[in-house]
């Protein structure tokens, strides 16, 4: 791997809420096509870290580089441009409730990328087809199932051509019978080489997709490594996955 393969690099991210340290110096280097998965107990800082990565929560300290260029997160203009390139998927979808699936995807294309209506529609159809929703484009979020909502959210993020996709427990708000369709879409993205940072409790995703697992606890990364080196008896990560397994009954 050469240096220019690095897409996103952050160093020493810290964040406290009301004096409680949530993140205590987290680093991350992400190469093109790489998939890093954050695991660990609730309250360990996974979600806060992901939201700090695109400054939805502004970190107390930390440096950012996108493709090795430093990002000044305090300049609004630079921040908006940076965020365009770092997409995000949320646990609870966060679709725009007053817009159809189609308009959810076209809105930012038109407002941010300044595409004309026709081009935006064409792009949205491509993205919605990719997630298998070409026949649902006219439906509003309240008319879609949870899995369909999350797929619209993924299409909406991908339409912006992000260089990195952050996923914050993308399946944990879904009924078990709806997680499959979202997992399939995520697998597809991985196959196409999308660079991702994901917090998830889905063992199957952790095992099969992760290039690197980061085990976070109390605001720091306490273990990291490939599934092969980390998911062996005796590690915190394996212990955590065992616990998930016994809860979900999912075999490894």
């Amino acid at each position, binding site marked *: 791997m050469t240096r220019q393969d690095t897409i996103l690099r952050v160093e020493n991210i810290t964040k406290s809420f009301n004096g409680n340290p949530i993140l205590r110096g987290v680093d991350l280097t992400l190469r093109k096509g790489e998939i890093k998965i954050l695991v660990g107990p609730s309250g360990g800082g996974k979600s806060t870290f992901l939201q700090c990565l695109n400054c939805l929560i502004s970190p107390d300290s930390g440096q950012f580089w996108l493709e090795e260029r430093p990002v000044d997160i305090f300049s609004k203009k630079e921040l*908006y*441009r940076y965020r365009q390139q770092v997409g995000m998927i949320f646990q609870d979808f966060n679709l725009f409730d007053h817009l159809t699936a189609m308009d959810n995807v076209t809105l930012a294309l038109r407002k941010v990328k300044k595409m004309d209506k026709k081009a935006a529609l064409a792009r949205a159809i491509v993205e919605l087809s990719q997630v298998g929703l070409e026949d649902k484009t006219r439906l509003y979020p309240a008319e879609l199932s949870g899995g369909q909502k999350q797929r619209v959210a993924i299409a909406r993020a991908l339409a912006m051509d992000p260089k990195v996709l952050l996923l914050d427990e993308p399946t944990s708000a879904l009924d078990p019978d709806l997680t499959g369709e979202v997992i399939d879409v995520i697998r597809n993205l991985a196959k196409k080489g999308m660079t991702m940072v994901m917090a998830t409790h889905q063992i199957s995703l952790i095992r099969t997709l992760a290039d690197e697992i980061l085990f976070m606890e109390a605001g720091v990364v306490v273990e990291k490594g490939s599934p092969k080196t980390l998911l062996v008896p005796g590690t915190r990560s394996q212990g955590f996955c065992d616990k998930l397994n016994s809860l979900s009954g999912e075999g490894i």
Partner: protein
Amino acid sequence: MPEIIAIIKDALPYLLSGGLITAGIVTGAMALGLILGLSMAVGRVYGSTAVKRVIGIYVWFFQGVPILVLLFLFYFGVFNYMGLNLSAVSAVTVVLGMTTAAYQANIFRGAILSLPQGQFKAASTLGMSDIQTILAIILPQALRLSIPAWSNEFSIVLKDSALAFVLGAPEIMARAKFVASRTYQHLPIYIVAGLIYFILTWAGVRALARLEKTVRIPGYSNKGI
């Protein structure tokens, strides 16, 4: 009895054209209140501490002082002092508009705060600016949610507009008072005046209910929110 009917028949066109003036005052006041109130709601939710404080003082002032006092204060005091030579109708419209703006600011603020915060975050992650997000995501939804409360506010402003007669604005109430004291037929004339207010209220509230239905987002409860 026939005499009363003749008087009402005589007075009706006069009272109805007062109804037009009332409708004009209320439309103007509600429009001014919408623009000012919406801006203040956005400022109060997303603005700096200083902005929030200034808006808070505005709302507190207009909520705390009776409309009759405000009408005198502005018509004979502030507008005069500023060298503005407003007609009674314009003055009433502006004062009612500024007052309803305070209440509307609270209506819209409540609606904005009731929206799930995640949508703002989602828009941010797509690279949308705060202003783009407020205009394209937040306000379209907040306005929909506000229609029932706004309709309520409309009926209150309509009835408050009767106070305009104290400044001599020739609206329904002023005309009814004039006809009643000339003919001594207080009861029938004020019943007719009341009916005109009632019909105006009913028509406005009906229209807003229809608007609410038209802009309802599919999939949400049929009863609206």
